[in-house]
């Protein structure tokens, strides 16, 4: 390791904060691709220092809906995907094509990152479109069903200003649309209950978005029995077999 390593020490620091551009960026990436351990270490140390500084401020809890959505999505998705060969393969192919003009390592790093990002964005967009289409089809079918009825729910003690409507068809299930719901207290979620027979059935849990709105799709009763009562209570996160918390929404 040489004593003077300029301009690469400066480049490494600026690279860690994303400020390097133009000829300096190209020169540094080509230099890094030669395997300079000093620069790699300096970039890593600077990133770590920035991370420590950025996280040293007072914590601020994010909206509870974010955690709820993530945990629910994780539970449905299973183990994270292992299809990581695709961006790598594309990155390697891109490197081979451009090898005549640039060093293979430099191009591989650049293209792998870009293609990986594009692959993530494309996959996420496809998933969103497919999910939205499926949800819209279900909602349309519910609206077309001649047996669908609308139940109005009014805010109770736990959510006095809240209003909700449930589109319900006994054979197809329903759709809850709620507004003006206050955020649930930490560790709690709203739970929808349907009563068809003697005991209430847990029909799903939800948290409203930042605007107090919530939408929940509900499956039909397994027996197909007509639902007589719908209500929403505040319950602890996790499995709850029967309503135990304060009532948030109930029929008028």
């Amino acid at each position, binding site marked *: 390791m040489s004593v003077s390593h300029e301009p690469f020490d400066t480049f490494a620091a*600026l690279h860690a904060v*994303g400020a390097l551009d133009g000829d300096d960026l190209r020169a540094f990436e080509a230099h890094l691709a030669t395997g300079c351990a000093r620069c790699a270490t300096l970039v890593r140390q600077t990133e770590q220092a*920035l991370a420590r*500084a950025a996280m040293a401020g007072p914590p601020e809890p994010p909206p509870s809906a*974010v955690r709820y959505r*993530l945990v629910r999505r994780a539970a449905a998705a299973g183990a*994270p995907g292992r299809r990581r060969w695709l961006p790598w393969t594309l990155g390697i192919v891109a490197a081979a094509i451009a090898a005549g003009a640039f060093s293979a390592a430099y191009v591989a790093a650049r293209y792998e990152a870009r293609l990986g990002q594009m692959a993530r964005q494309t996959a996420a967009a496809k998933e969103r479109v497919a999910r939205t289409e499926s949800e819209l089809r279900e909602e349309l079918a519910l609206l077309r069903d001649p047996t669908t009825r609308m139940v109005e729910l009014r805010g109770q003690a736990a959510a006095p200003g809240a209003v909700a409507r449930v589109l319900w068809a006994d054979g197809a299930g329903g759709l809850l649309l709620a507004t003006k719901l206050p955020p649930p207290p930490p560790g709690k979620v709203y739970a929808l209950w349907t009563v068809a027979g003697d005991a209430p059935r847990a029909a799903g849990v939800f948290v409203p978005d930042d605007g107090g709105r919530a939408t929940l799709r509900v499956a039909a009763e397994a027996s197909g029995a007509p639902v007589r009562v719908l209500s929403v209570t505040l319950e602890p996160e996790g499995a709850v077999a029967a309503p135990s918390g304060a009532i948030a929404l109930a029929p008028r």
Partner: protein
Amino acid sequence: MSNAADLIHQMAEGDAEAFGRFYDRYAPLIYPLILRILPDPTDAAECLQDVFWESRERARTYDAARGTPDAWLVTRARARAIERMRAARRRRDALPLGAPRAVAVEAPAPPERMAGFDRSVLTRAFERLPDPQREALELAYYGGLTQTEITARLKQPLGTVKTRLRLALDRLREMVKPA
């Protein structure tokens, strides 16, 4: 191996409880950083969700030799927030064909216009930097500006901007060095 690294490895195996614990540990620390870059709480919440989902999906690629869990997550969070900020800027700047295009480089709002978020992320480490260095570093870190863009913004020579950033980052490394 730190506890956070353990959680990342458990996340990679699909452990939903570990994912929840990882989120609980880091989300309140990361959210102020994202809010500093994306002041709209809805944007910030969506970004936070993307960051944690991507972290879960890429947990298998985490390599402790290449950085701490903190740096692994913060670097991703900042990058995603800046991507969103730039995308919003591009949408806003997409003028009709033939109309003159804005050439001004956008910078984050100065602290007095961001009173709600300023203190939450402006850590003591940043505060202890000399003003010119802190200004350049904030434009780069929170504003996502490159050295050339900062030069245009501050109307300072490129060499001056590089030196300020370099000195700021050298000091920052010294200040937050683990005891």
